[in-house]
């Protein structure tokens, strides 16, 4: 039922439809089968009846003697066998004629029946096409919702509906992201613009006022720059492809945390590092470092002075983990489901003033999930928060990597953060 393309292209418009081709095929097959059956019957019949023309037999005369003179006329006289032959020849001829007639009628009827049946079978496809054509990118809320039994076409329509639902969700998420991003960018932009407008409108502004304005503008533009960086990081992560290579998790975590030693010390915060070497995961090294950095950045920003931040990494079974625990303000139970949402902030004013973009944890979650992992949070207001990233261990074993030099700063062997975090965070996600 798949004629070559050039043939289809040459057909007139009305003859290109599946319905037409299906009808032709149906009709041809039915006609062919019927013709074979009729031919077979005909042949069998012909073979069993000798179909010979009857030669003239003995001629006789029949007279009617009731009339005077007697009226006589000649007749052919047959033997019984000759009579039988004659009848047979007549029957076969008739059968042949009727068969041709019946085949002709059958052909016409099969065309009609084929057209009707094809139309009925293909009707749901017409509906699917009509809905698909109606749906524009802006109105993905429509569905085909094909009624009827669970057959192949219903499955097709349902699959199509499911695809539309996914597309709809993806578009909605994208719109929301754009709206959120523009909202977040408008605020620093408004700060810059209003401060500049107000400064320019004052012809008598003294250098101190102008200097203050410049400081405010710098603060706002720094915030925008960080925001743009984070937005780009999120957008890039949404692309399906990214580097997949074996990453020495311990080394990546150690490198990411090196940048936080000085800022933590500046706030009199102790940064405890307990890194188990030899754990390899498959993924993007820079992204994993960024996830660790984001967690540490939050911890250093929110933890009170003279507190302790514990960073640890290791593996358990076929799962690797990175844990960051702080003694910061903690997160209220009702806020915990939201902390990984974009632009969510526990305390808007404070977080903005501290330079938070509201995207850090969203990026962490995205990085964890794009590596086939998860991020878990446990937090108690007033006690602190611990974040644990679980990642699948790479299929290639750690032994294939070059041996890692001994950890330059072996951490205290007792009570690592992971030891404390693990039991309360339950089993690694499977």
């Amino acid at each position, binding site marked *: 039922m798949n004629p070559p393309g050039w043939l289809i292209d040459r057909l007139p418009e009305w003859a290109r439809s599946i319905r037409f081709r299906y009808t032709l095929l149906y009709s041809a097959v039915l006609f062919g089968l019927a013709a074979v059956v009729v031919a077979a019957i005909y042949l069998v019949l012909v073979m069993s009846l000798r179909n010979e023309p009857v030669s003239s037999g003995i001629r006789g005369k029949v007279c009617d003697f009731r009339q005077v003179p007697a009226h006589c006329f000649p007749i052919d006289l047959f033997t019984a066998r000759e009579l039988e032959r004659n009848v047979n020849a007549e029957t076969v001829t008739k059968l042949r004629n009727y068969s041709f007639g019946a085949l002709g009628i059958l052909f016409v009827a099969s065309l009609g029946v084929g057209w009707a049946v094809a139309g009925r079978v293909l009707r749901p496809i017409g509906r699917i096409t009509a809905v698909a054509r109606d749906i524009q990118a802006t109105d993905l809320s429509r569905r085909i919702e094909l009624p009827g039994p669970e057959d192949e076409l219903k499955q097709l329509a349902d699959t199509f509906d499911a695809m539309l639902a996914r597309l709809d969700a993806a578009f909605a998420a994208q719109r929301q992201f754009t709206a959120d991003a*523009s909202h977040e960018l*408008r605020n620093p932009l*408004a700060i810059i*613009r*209003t401060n500049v*407008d*107000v400064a320019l409108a004052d012809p008598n502004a003294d250098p101190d006022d102008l200097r203050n304005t410049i400081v405010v503008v710098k603060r706002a533009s720094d915030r925008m720059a960080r925001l743009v960086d984070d937005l780009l990081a999120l957008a890039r992560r949404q692309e399906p492809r990214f580097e997949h290579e074996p990453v020495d998790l311990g080394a990546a975590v150690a490198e990411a945390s090196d940048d936080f030693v000085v800022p933590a010390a500046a706030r009199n915060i102790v940064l405890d590092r307990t890194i188990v070497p030899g754990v390899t995961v498959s993924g993007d090294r820079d992204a994993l470092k960024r996830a660790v950095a984001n967690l540490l950045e939050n911890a250093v920003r929110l933890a009170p002075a003279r507190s302790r931040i514990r960073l640890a990494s290791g593996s358990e079974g076929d799962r690797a983990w990175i844990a960051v625990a702080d003694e910061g303000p903690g997160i209220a139970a009702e806020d915990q489901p939201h902390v990984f949402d974009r632009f969510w902030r526990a305390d808007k*004013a404070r977080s903005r003033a501290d330079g938070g973009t509201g995207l850090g944890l969203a990026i962490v979650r995205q990085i964890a999930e794009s590596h086939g992992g998860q991020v878990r949070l446990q937090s108690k207001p007033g006690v602190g928060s611990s974040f644990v990233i679980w990642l699948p261990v790479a299929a290639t074993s750690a032994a294939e990597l070059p041996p890692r030099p001994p950890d330059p700063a072996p951490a205290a062997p007792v009570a690592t953060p992971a030891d404390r975090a693990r039991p309360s965070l339950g089993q690694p996600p499977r």
Partner: protein
Amino acid sequence: MRVLVVEDEVDLADAIARGLRREGYAVDVAYDGDEAVDKAGVNDYDVVCLDLNLPKLDGIEVVRRIRADDVGQPTRVLMLTARDSTRDRITGLDEGADDYLVKPFDFDELKARLRALLRRDAGRSGAVLRVGDIELDSSRHDARRGGHPLPLTPKEFALLRYFMSRPGQVLSQEELLEHVWDENADPFTNTVRVTVMTLRRKLADAGDGQPIETVVGRGYRLREP
């Protein structure tokens, strides 16, 4: 004219307040929704510039509470929003905002919209106020008597504008303090009396007669011609 600026971005709120004060408005600032409702409950503001997205109490809720407290002259609400979707604007206007402005905005536009809102109460359609031979153009910050420019300080200008928007009415010292000075003014000083005095002297210098008269025991009144 007394304005409350409600905005959680400190740098933005302070810039708006600074700019409006220079225009002669009495400006108070609130950095969250709770503070805004508290201040609107204590003081009688002519206009509230309200950010929609506020910590503690959402801007829409603030509008509702301000509207619920409204007695007498309604407080005008100018909504500032970083959300530019039509739905958000409709919600804001339906909940009682009088106008909206999408961030980032031109500061001149903010000033023009504030003037337009204040004119609505006075039932006038232009930016120029006229009472007798006194003319006041608030958009150009220009006041004249009989064509002669009046060299007014921002506070005197604001005071004259308040008088001119209520010609013939007796205005008490308390009312003037409430609408022309912000919350940083000390109610126990004679700042109102002193400013009225300097304004009257400048008006007298520019023309014949004193248009602002003292109503003993009650306050001051701008004479209608």
